[in-house]
């Protein structure tokens, strides 16, 4: 399938940019730790779109973008595991997951 003739690279770049900034907006406007984590996941996925699109359109002779996207996914999994452990611990200590109420460093 000749995707380059059908869909220009610009479409992929614009899509990745929109998803990235929607994720950023989610991090900025939400005050719940779990929804902020979901915004971060959206941003990581937007970055992956760009890596994969650049790999497919510009450097089809290598697989660098593909492996970079794989490694980003592994990091995202590790990050989600740690973040959720932290969120559960915070919930045990403060009984809330809103960042406005979690404002003590020493408990």
């Amino acid at each position: 399938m000749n995707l380059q003739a059908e869909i220009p690279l610009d479409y992929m770049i614009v899509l990745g940019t929109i998803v990235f900034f929607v994720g950023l907006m989610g991090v900025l406007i939400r005050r719940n730790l779990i929804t902020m984590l979901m915004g971060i996941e959206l941003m990581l996925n937007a970055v992956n779109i760009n890596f994969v699109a650049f790999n497919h359109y510009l450097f089809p002779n290598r697989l660098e973008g593909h492996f970079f996207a794989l490694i980003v996914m592994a990091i995202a999994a590790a990050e989600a595991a740690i973040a959720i452990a932290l969120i559960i611990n915070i919930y045990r200590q403060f009984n809330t997951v809103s960042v406005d109420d979690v404002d003590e460093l020493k408990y």
Partner: protein
Amino acid sequence: MTGPKIIFFILATAIVVFSILSIFSRRILRAAIYLLFVLVALAGLYYMMNFQFLAAVQLMLYAGGIVVLIIFSILLTSQIDSKLEAPKGSHILSGAITAMAGIGLAVTTLLNFKFNTSPEAAIGTDMRTIGRQLMDTGAHGYALPFEVISILLLAALVGSIYIARKSRT
């Protein structure tokens, strides 16, 4: 409109709409399900670009792993029918301005840049090539990042168990 174009526009619309719904939904469980739809549509996009392995990993790791983990933590930390408080108007305004400015800046910069396609012949993206390159230590080999990632994942798992366990005191 040809077939791939129609599929791309369906997937792109789904990704954008569900990601916006996911950050604005006031029911947190629904937000997680919208995120799941975004991730599945992204797997379809990878499949369109002939990265079948990446699409499968996306489905297994994100849709099967991270979303389930997020739903677990939602159910552990909030009531199932509780609504989140609506974000403040000033927060929405500043967030929207930031997002719009960022999108405008990034899109104008990127669309004005002249990308050059590599003239070399394309290589396949089948499992055989991917597996060979992932284990190769020579040029275009990714054995070192692969091992580093495995150590990182192990450390992250041990660390998250240590953080999340109940303290005995």
